[in-house]
């Protein structure tokens, strides 16, 4: 129960941070952390299938896509202001 409350608090914290941190790269990393915490929450909810999918797709693939986008964005910015 205490673990669940802590996990819930961590979920809320990482979500708020991911949505408000000024630095985009940090925001995406925090979002990946959020995804991994979600996977943990699914495990606590007796949903191992979702936990697996969340870790692989929600955190993993989404994270890769988003990191790639941030990289692309930074590259674009460097080109514009050398």
């Amino acid at each position, binding site marked *: 129960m205490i673990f669940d409350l802590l996990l819930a608090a961590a979920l809320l914290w990482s979500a708020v941070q991911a*949505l408000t941190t000024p630095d985009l790269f940090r925001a995406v990393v925090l979002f990946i952390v959020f995804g991994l915490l979600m996977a943990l929450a699914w495990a606590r*909810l*007796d*949903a191992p299938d979702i936990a697996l999918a969340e870790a692989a*797709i929600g955190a993993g693939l989404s994270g890769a896509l988003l990191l790639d986008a941030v990289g692309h964005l930074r590259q674009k910015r460097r080109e514009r202001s050398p």
Partner: protein
Amino acid sequence: MNAPLIYALTGAALFVFGVTGLMLQAHLLRKILAFNVMGSGIFLVLVGLAQRTGIPDPVPQAMVLTGIVVAIAATALALALARQLLDQSGEMRLPEEEAGKDKLDV
């Protein structure tokens, strides 16, 4: 109050965060993050509420698996559009003027 309900309430809060972010953040990458947070919130409400008696329910669990796949599909499409926008306008945000067209004093 038991563990599934805690997660359902967390999900409700995440939904609210996500919707707020989706509406207020201007940067498209953040809007996409917010959409994913909103989705996770909905999934937690779905499973948390259904399992509030403590018995695992495979039906909403299968629905969430479907939902996660739909969310990644939407995320990828949104990112592709955001990148096109970046390449064309140099910005990853939606132009304001289009919304401004919706005024009578054109």
